[in-house]
């Protein structure tokens, strides 16, 4: 019997680039509406790992995935599943904000909705406003919704990308070092926003900032050379980790 509070259940997940294996059998269970931080040294496979969670990894030429990723009780790698729908439904935020160039703030947020068939203007307006509010950007842009998204500051662009991802009300949000290019104020905005999302969204965030992992996450997963070394409550992970390699890594002694 699967524990009913488990929302994402990752079973023996492996990933390759051509013949190079970069993830070797990851098992991880994530509860609904929690924040999980993924940490580990550069090149250990963090980005690859979260890109497997919305079937983005296989888009790279020669890339391959094996294993299962259950979202509730459905394996997203089941042959009957359309990867395009998965990518559309599981939002991803990258290190560098990537608003659609040449598109207004409004259209950036509305595009996903339009793609999924929303036509009614009033409904679009409502959803755009709601998403921008949830991403804590509304106040700053509400009078300039027709300005290009690329004209915003870096921190604002990142919040725009988050609003864009939230518009379609995804159950899961993947974030790959979302604040590494931002100043501390924009960073704290985004961190606060992550915490506020957990009423509806399960967040998986890759970060190199140990303090950020300990501030925002409920659980922390430590990857090393494509292996999951430790997956623990964040409060324990940063005060008394189980594995010596975790201790060495977070104290800068690995």
């Amino acid at each position, binding site marked *: 019997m699967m524990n009913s509070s488990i929302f994402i259940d990752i079973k023996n997940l492996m990933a390759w680039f051509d013949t190079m294996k970069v993830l070797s059998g990851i098992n991880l269970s994530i509860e609904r509406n929690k924040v999980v931080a993924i940490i580990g040294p550069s090149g250990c496979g963090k980005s690859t790992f979260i890109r497997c969670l919305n079937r983005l990894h296989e888009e790279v030429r020669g890339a391959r995935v094996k294993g299962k990723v259950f979202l509730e009780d459905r394996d997203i790698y089941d042959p009957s599943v359309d990867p395009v729908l998965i990518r559309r439904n599981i939002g991803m935020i990258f290190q560098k904000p990537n608003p659609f160039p040449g598109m207004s703030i409004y259209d950036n947020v509305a595009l996903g909705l339009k793609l999924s068939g929303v036509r009614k203007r009033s409904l679009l307006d409502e959803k755009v406003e709601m998403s921008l509010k949830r991403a804590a950007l509304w106040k700053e842009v509400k009078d300039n919704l027709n300005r290009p998204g690329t004209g915003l500051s870096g921190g604002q662009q990142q919040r725009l990308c988050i609003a864009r991802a939230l518009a379609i009300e995804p159950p899961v949000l993947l974030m790959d070092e979302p604040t590494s290019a931002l100043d501390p104020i924009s960073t704290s905005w985004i961190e606060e926003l992550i915490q506020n999302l957990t009423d509806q969204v399960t967040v998986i965030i890759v970060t190199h900032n*140990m303090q950020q992992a300990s501030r925002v996450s409920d659980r922390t997963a430590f990857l090393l050379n494509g292996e999951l070394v430790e997956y623990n409550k964040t409060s324990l992970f940063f005060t008394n980790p189980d594995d010596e390699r975790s201790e060495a890594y977070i*104290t800068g002694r690995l």
Partner: protein
Amino acid sequence: MQTKFLDERLTQLKSLIASMGGCAEQMLKEAGLITFDKEVNREELYKLVQNREQEIDSLQIRLGKHCFRVLARQAPVARDLRLVLSIISINTALERMGDLSLNIAKKGKALKEDPLLEIPFEKLKEMFHQITSMIRGCLDAFINEDDRLAREVIIQDDRADQLKDGICVKLKECILANNDLVDTCIQLVSISEMLERLGDQATNIAEEVIFMETGRDVKHKKL
């Protein structure tokens, strides 16, 4: 590089604790001489104890500042974090120990002798040695990062409490035998209570060492 810097800071914090601990041990030793040794110049020794107490106070302030800075600037985690948190608590415990030893010295230098008090004095001396060894033990446990030794210190605390109870019984007998001894007996009870509190502080330090080493909080728990 970053870590080397942190390691240097942590070593510095530990050596400040070692200095404070050395000072506290020395103070207690001198308070003991004042109380139990008839040959010493009590007033002179007392001045020395007073000076050491001030030294501990200023070390406490310095150490507190250093800990604050390390927390703010290095944001240590895991064992490093536990070490700094333990040091903050041990810092307070050692400062209290200084105060207690000073008070023992103050009472000790005013004590009067009487043949009737020989047995309680002997018992008090035994308790004094017990507490001295607990303090030695908890400081060694800290320096050597030895949680087993810390556990032994905590276990010794029960014995110290028993000794104290025994002393109070004996002192009651003395008072009943000779009313003129009331004042001195009260002083002796008070010294035994301060020794007991010194033992409690040693226990606190030992508990911090266990926390630092294992991440387990053993306060108010049976070992």
